[in-house]
Each structure stands twice: as structure tokens, then as C-alpha cells.
């Protein structure tokens, strides 16, 4: 087996283990915290018999390990159980919404990743210039802005004052792809503004770090232009940290989407989760949490594998 295949297999196994442990934490959280779900839902006036019957219906009368295994078995076969509040099948509730959330996150990623890397390289190239300073202050500020602040500013200017884009990201029936892109432009732009800054800062920092290396000086001394030095000599070696920070921000996109979806009334997974928290619909929240955590772990895994693939040195680390 080539070392890279072995590495990927090892990482995958670790990822699966993490996912199982995370599912355990998500499941256990309900067990560890005080309070009886059945009693909470039925209210204080419920008779002990109704509470007992409801507990049996939810399967709460079985011991926790058995319930965990049942739940995990269900999750593996794509059955997340039924909603406590509405009794509907959770998997079917989540499926469509998850697709829409991925669409929004993917849309934002498609704009922000090339933008961030380009701006980062430019900032590294014109280091300590006015451009670099402005970029630095702008990124520090945008990291500090809550998502809804950015979202409402965009709504105020692009939707209310200028009426270019709709402030509610609602698809209606059978939208075309172009229409979908148009209707979700503001939420996507919000996410772009929130994540680009961080990715750009890291791109700039990792390239500047490399610029102090002797081989870069050598490239410069033999007469390579600044653009060539950065793109051909520095960038390939800076890829690993850049990939890592991009994956981290993609994971952030997946979670940052929660608030953006609420602001723009976008029918995605985040909105479902927030509504379910308010209704204390624990089974739905568990399902959403597991899906989000799965994506998060997968992205981190992908970043690990990609950054090792771009930097063979990492393969032979002890």
C-alpha cells in the first residue's frame, strides 16, 4: 500500500470514530442534563399514567445503551425517528432543507474562496502598502461583525434603498437555476463578507511567512519577478495552511448559515434547527446537530488529507 492510501485510510477511520463519539455526545446530552422530556412536553398537569404511556411511546422506558444503539441503527439506515412536536418523519424533513443549505453554502464558497486567495496574495505582494493596511483593518473589523449586522446593512442598501435584490430568499415553485442564484444573492453575499476576511488573512500570513525563506531569496536573486516568486515558489508551499483555513471556514459557513437563514427567512436546515430549539423538539435538534457535525468532521478530514497530499513532508511525521 502506498503511504498516501494508508494515510487516507487512517484518517477516514479516525473520522468515523470521531463521528461515532460525537453521536454519543449528542445522544448523551439528553441523558445527562436534568429534567424529564416527557414531563416537560406534556406539562405539569399530566397524570403519571399519560407520562408513562408517552415515555413508552418515545421509547424512554428502555435503558440508555439500548436506546442509543437503536437510534444509531436508525441513523445508519437513514431513519432519524419522528419529530416530538409534529410526529413527522425527521429524515424527510431534513433532506430537502439540507440540500438548500448546501446550495447556499456552496454558492458563498464559490465566490469567497477565489476572492480570498487572490486578495491574500495581493496583500502579501504589496505588504505594508496602503492597500495592505486597509485590507488588514477591514478584515479585523469584518471578523468582529455579527452576521445579522452585515445582513441587515445589505438589506438596507441593496434591497430597501436600491431595490436590486429581494430581502427574502424564498424560491417559490420550480425556480430556474439563475433565479435561485438571484434570490439567494444577499444571504450568499453576507456569508462571503463574513468568511472571506479570515481566509484572506491566513493566506497573507502564510505567504509572508514563506517569503523570509532562503529559497525565495534565491528565486529573487536569479531575477524572477515578484508575481512569479509568489505564484510559482511560495504558493505551492503555502497550500497546506491555506487549505486548512479554507476548510475551517467552510465548516464555519455551514454553521454561520444558521443566523443568515433566519434573517432572510431561507427554508434551510439552520432555520429548522432554530425553530425546533424554540419548540424544544429534541429529536429534530439531535438530527440537525448530527448532520451539521457530520459535515463539519468531513470537511476537517478533507482538509487534513488535502494538506498532507500537497506537502509530502507531513506524511513522514513521527
Amino acid at each position, binding site marked *: 500500500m502506498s503511504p498516501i492510501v494508508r494515510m487516507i485510510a487512517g484518517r477516514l477511520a479516525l473520522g468515523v470514530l470521531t463521528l461515532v463519539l460525537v453521536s454519543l455526545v449528542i445522544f448523551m446530552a439528553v441523558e445527562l442534563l436534568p429534567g424529564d422530556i416527557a414531563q416537560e412536553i406534556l406539562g405539569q398537569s399530566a397524570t403519571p399514567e399519560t407520562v408513562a404511556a408517552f415515555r413508552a411511546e418515545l421509547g424512554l422506558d428502555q435503558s440508555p445503551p439500548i436506546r442509543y444503539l437503536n437510534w444509531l441503527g436508525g441513523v445508519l439506515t437513514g431513519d432519524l425517528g419522528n419529530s416530538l412536536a409534529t410526529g413527522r418523519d425527521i429524515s424527510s424533513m431534513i433532506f430537502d432543507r439540507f440540500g438548500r443549505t448546501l446550495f447556499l453554502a456552496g454558492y458563498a464558497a464559490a465566490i469567497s474562496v477565489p476572492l480570498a486567495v487572490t486578495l491574500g496574495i495581493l496583500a502579501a505582494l504589496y505588504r505594508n502598502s496602503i492597500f495592505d493596511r486597509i485590507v488588514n483593518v477591514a478584515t479585523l473589523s469584518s471578523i468582529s461583525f455579527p452576521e445579522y449586522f452585515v445582513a441587515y446593512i445589505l438589506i438596507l442598501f441593496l434591497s430597501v434603498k436600491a431595490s436590486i435584490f429581494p430581502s427574502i430568499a424564498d424560491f417559490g415553485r420550480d425556480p430556474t437555476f439563475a433565479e435561485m442564484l438571484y434570490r439567494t444573492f444577499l444571504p450568499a453575499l453576507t456569508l462571503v463578507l463574513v468568511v472571506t476576511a479570515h481566509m484572506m488573512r491566513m493566506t497573507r500570513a502564510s505567504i509572508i511567512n514563506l517569503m523570509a525563506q532562503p529559497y525565495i531569496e534565491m528565486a529573487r536573486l536569479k531575477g524572477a519577478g515578484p508575481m512569479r516568486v509568489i505564484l510559482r515558489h511560495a504558493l505551492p508551499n503555502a497550500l497546506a495552511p491555506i487549505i486548512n483555513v479554507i476548510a475551517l471556514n467552510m465548516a464555519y459557513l455551514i454553521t454561520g448559515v444558521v443566523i443568515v437563514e433566519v434573517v432572510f427567512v431561507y427554508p434551510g436546515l439552520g432555520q429548522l434547527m*432554530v425553530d425546533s430549539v424554540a419548540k424544544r423538539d429534541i429529536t429534530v435538534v439531535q438530527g440537525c446537530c448530527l448532520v451539521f457535525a457530520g459535515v463539519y468532521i468531513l470537511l476537517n478530514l478533507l482538509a487534513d488529507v488535502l494538506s498532507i497530499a500537497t506537502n509530502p513532508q507531513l506524511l513522514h511525521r513521527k
Partner: protein
Amino acid sequence: MNTLKLLRSAPPTAKFGMILIAIYAVIAILTPWIAPHGQAEIVGLEFEPWGGEFILGTDNLGRDMLSRMFYGIRNSVSIALATTILSFALGTVLGLMAATLGGWIDQLMSRLVDVLMAIPAILFALLLLTITGTGIPQMIAIIAVIEATRVFRLTRATAMNVAVMDFVEAARLRGEGTFWVIRREILPNITSPLIAEFGLRFCFVFLAISALSFLGLGIQPPTADLGAMVRDNAALITFGELVPLLPAAAIALLTVAVNFVVDWMLHRASGLKS
């Protein structure tokens, strides 16, 4: 005298940050005396315009916006500060224990933290809030525990680097106890990264709490909170009004200020080392 010189040498962004933090602190402390009205007091009609009797107008229930802003800053900042302090108390103590005791205690705590950190923070908070129900004490506890995992990581990593130094070895050989070694040898050497981390964590906590309140799952009405105020007045945005942006701007301004100061501190720390 030295501190004065140090402060004067700060870059303009850091000075700006420190002045802003001071203003927020003054507002947070003096609110009950400087706010014209109470935080839950209905004093006029709904959505009255700016100027006149109410400098920033009134909100969706006819409460004075300016007073709500002051109380909002006071409530949000103090709750965020309490949460950050709690998470640091938890995270540093456990992190120092893991770094100095090592062995299975370290392994157990580190792996547990690894698993907890594999769940995105805001989602984990939402999960736990579903179980506990909304409320200020629950929210403080939940966010403190989640942030404590991050503090634990940093404390453990920095303390590990110090724990292998010769002077720590010497102290151990002298026969000093673990607690003494932590307090007198390790802690003084990791305070500067921890202080910078405190600033960053405060920003995260502040943003997380206001995000939860914005979603209607954090600080509950009628207690004024900056995040919840954005939500309450969000309808005004469609009329081209700036009012809902004010509380959001207040949140952003404080986090920007703290970030500027932390950035300067980190820059200084890294500059001194190299």
C-alpha cells in the same frame, strides 16, 4: 510611568480600541444613573422617530431606545464577561492540571475535549439549550463549558511548553508541590498568551450570546439585550430606518475595539520573542 509610556507607544488602532472599551465600561457601570428611562418602561408610542423627547426614538413596544441601548450594553457585556471568566476558571485549571499531572488524566481530558470540539460551538449550544430550556443561568453555563474546551486546549499547549523547562524541573527537584509549581513557575510564564486569549474569547462569547438572543433563544424579554433588540426592531429595516442597526453596531464596535487591542498585544508578544 512605564505603563503610561507603553500605552503611548500603542498604534492608533489599539488606542482607538482602548478608548472605546473604556467608554463601554463607563456606560455599563453608570447605566442606572445616566439612562433617561427604565429598560422595560413603556414611555411613548410605538416606533416614535428620532429627536425630540426620545433621542433615538422608541422601539416596537414604545420603550425609549436610548435607555434600552444603555441597558442592553450593560446586560450583554456583564453577562458575556461573567461567562468568559467562568470559562477561563474552568479551562485554565483543567488545562494546567492536564499539563502538569500528565498521564491518564491528561489523556482522558484531552480526548474528551477533542470530541466536544468536533461539534460546532453554536450548534452544540442550541442542542443543550433545547434540553435545558432558555434562561440566563443555563446560557451562561452552556457557553462557558463550550468555550472552556478552547481555553483548555490553549492553556494545556502553552503550559506543556513551560512544564518541560529546566527551571520547572529544578523547582520539582527542590521538592515543591504541584500547586506551587503551577502558581509560581508555570502560570507567570503563560499569562500573556492567556490575556490575549481572554480578549478573543470575550469577543466569541459576546457574539455567541447576542446571536442566541437574536434567535430568541438567549436573554429573554423584557430584559434589554443588544441581539434581541435587533430582532425586535428588524421590521423597521424595510422602511429604510437605521434603528435596528444601532444595537448591532454597538456589538460590532465593541468586538472591533477588543480585537484591535488584542491584535496589538499579540503583535508585541511575538515581536519581543523574535
